[in-house]
């Protein structure tokens, strides 16, 4: 719905006055004007840089190695100097942000160029790892905008756990230990990432980065918990090869208990904003649900479907309590899709699937009715 129509609806519903509507529209139109001005400016600069890059690329073979290296290095030094000069200049915030972004990217291209000139023969991941660590202080100190901080946060959350997986978990002695450690790590790290995003100092200093961390924590927990339900599909002999099933189950149980304890504790801490509580609940709930298939281990299609649906119904309920409508809609959509797939798997024929859908429909409506009754009862008790 356009802003005009939405504002008119609010005026009609007596939520805002006519004057407020005009003020909001004037503010938004001013913003749009600035956006256009800046946008055209950025496109112009980008076009010039692209042109220079294409000219350089077409003559790449004729430029000597020392010229390539020294020119690139000089460009990086100039950018670093500009960033330092503009560090406290309030009128140069946008310029500084652009320079930080350029230096961040150009450090990576300089690494690639060094690899090319000196025939290092290294792999891409090593180059990315080197680049990430040497530029992290730059990004953390200078970057303020959404794009750089969010990109850095995504890279951090993807790269650091991956590094941990490859350098620690992959080197563990047997499959059972690897699976146990991987599960424990996947269940608890999202909570850690989410809490990092909920750290007040980070929210104040780097709101975009904090928001990205919180979003990644939620996505990670929900994705891993959803994926864990597919453990039930594993053929039985997949687990007979694991030497110590007790280790896996015990780790999953400890992980579940640790998550529940964290959840209990987090519901009582004062520094988590009230608005964030349902999201904290979702992360903890999903992390707890992740452990369950590893405790049961041997299952079937039905158990997989039930785990998945229970997970997403829980997410939907928690999202509903916080007023996160889009997440509620997503959970309804996901549950519907999973039910459809589940009945095709379970019954196969259209007739049986039809009966199945009717039954599950009644079950869901019954659950809804039960939840309402419980809620009403709790409310009346609270009032009394």
């Amino acid at each position: 719905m356009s802003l005009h129509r939405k504002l008119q609806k609010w005026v009609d519903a007596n939520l805002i006055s006519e004057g407020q509507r005009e003020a909001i529209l004037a503010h938004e139109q001013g913003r749009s004007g600035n956006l256009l001005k800046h946008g055209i400016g950025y496109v112009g600069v980008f076009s010039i840089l692209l042109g220079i890059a294409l000219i350089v690329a077409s003559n790449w073979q004729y430029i000597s190695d020392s010229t390539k290296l020294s020119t690139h290095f000089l460009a990086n030094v100039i950018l670093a100097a500009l960033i330092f000069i503009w560090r406290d200049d309030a009128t140069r915030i946008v310029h500084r942000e652009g320079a930080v972004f350029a230096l961040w990217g150009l450090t990576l291209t300089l690494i690639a160029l060094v690899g090319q000139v000196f025939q290092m023969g290294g792999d891409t991941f090593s180059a990315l790892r080197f680049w990430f660590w040497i530029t992290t202080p730059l990004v953390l100190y200078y970057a303020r905008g959404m794009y750089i901080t969010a990109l850095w946060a995504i890279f951090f959350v993807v790269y650091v756990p991956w590094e941990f997986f490859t350098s620690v978990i992959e080197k563990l002695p047997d499959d059972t230990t690897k699976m146990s450690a991987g599960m424990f790590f996947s269940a608890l790290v999202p909570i850690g990432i989410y809490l990092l995003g909920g750290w007040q100092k980070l929210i104040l200093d780097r709101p975009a980065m904090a928001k990205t961390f919180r979003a990644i924590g939620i996505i990670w927990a929900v994705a891993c918990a959803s994926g864990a339900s597919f453990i039930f599909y594993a053929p039985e002999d997949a687990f007979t090869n694991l030497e110590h099933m007790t280790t896996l189950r015990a780790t999953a149980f400890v992980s579940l208990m640790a998550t529940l304890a964290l959840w209990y504790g987090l519901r009582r801490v004062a520094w988590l904003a009230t608005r964030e509580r349902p999201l904290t609940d979702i992360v903890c709930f999903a992390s707890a649900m992740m452990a369950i298939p590893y405790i049961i281990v041997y299952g079937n299609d039905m158990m997989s479907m039930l785990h998945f649906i229970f997970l997403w119904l829980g997410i939907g309920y928690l999202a509903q309590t916080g007023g996160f409508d889009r997440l509620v809609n997503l959970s309804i959509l996901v549950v519907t899709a999973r039910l459809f797939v589940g009945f095709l798997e379970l019954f196969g024929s259209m007739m049986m699937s039809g009966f199945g859908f009717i039954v599950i429909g009644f079950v869901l409506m019954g659950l809804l009715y039960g939840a309402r009754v419980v809620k009403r009862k709790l409310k009346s008790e609270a009032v009394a």
Partner: protein
Amino acid sequence: MTISVREKTLFALLCVALPIVIMGAWIGCLSYDRATAEPYHVIVKGYDPRDLLHGKFLNVRYAWEDARSQKPNRDMNDLPISAKYYVPEWDAQDLETMLREDKNTFSADITLNRRNKTQIKALYIDDKPWEEALATWRENRDNSAHE
């Protein structure tokens, strides 16, 4: 704990200078290594026929045993046996074909440092710079295709 303006400035400088200083030092070390390492001319072969070209890199094996290779006065067991050589993407496919044909002799000017690490400085095909040899090879290929 309060941070003085001087400390804050120093910290800001450190954060922005770190990638510059590290990259500068790295380039300096590599340049020094290249300038001071011992140069050799070595015959090279295709390293693995299934993976001669990985992206833009030509994977080669040093044929130290070849009589035409200059041999360093070191324990041969410590010498590296393979290397990657960066080539432009648009030349990679044809170079691979040339290496597979086995009609040409590939050799390289390399440097060998004290830690027995090598860097390929230049690649030759039949003792000509590879760009020149590749151009001739392409010319011959195109001519034979027209005939």
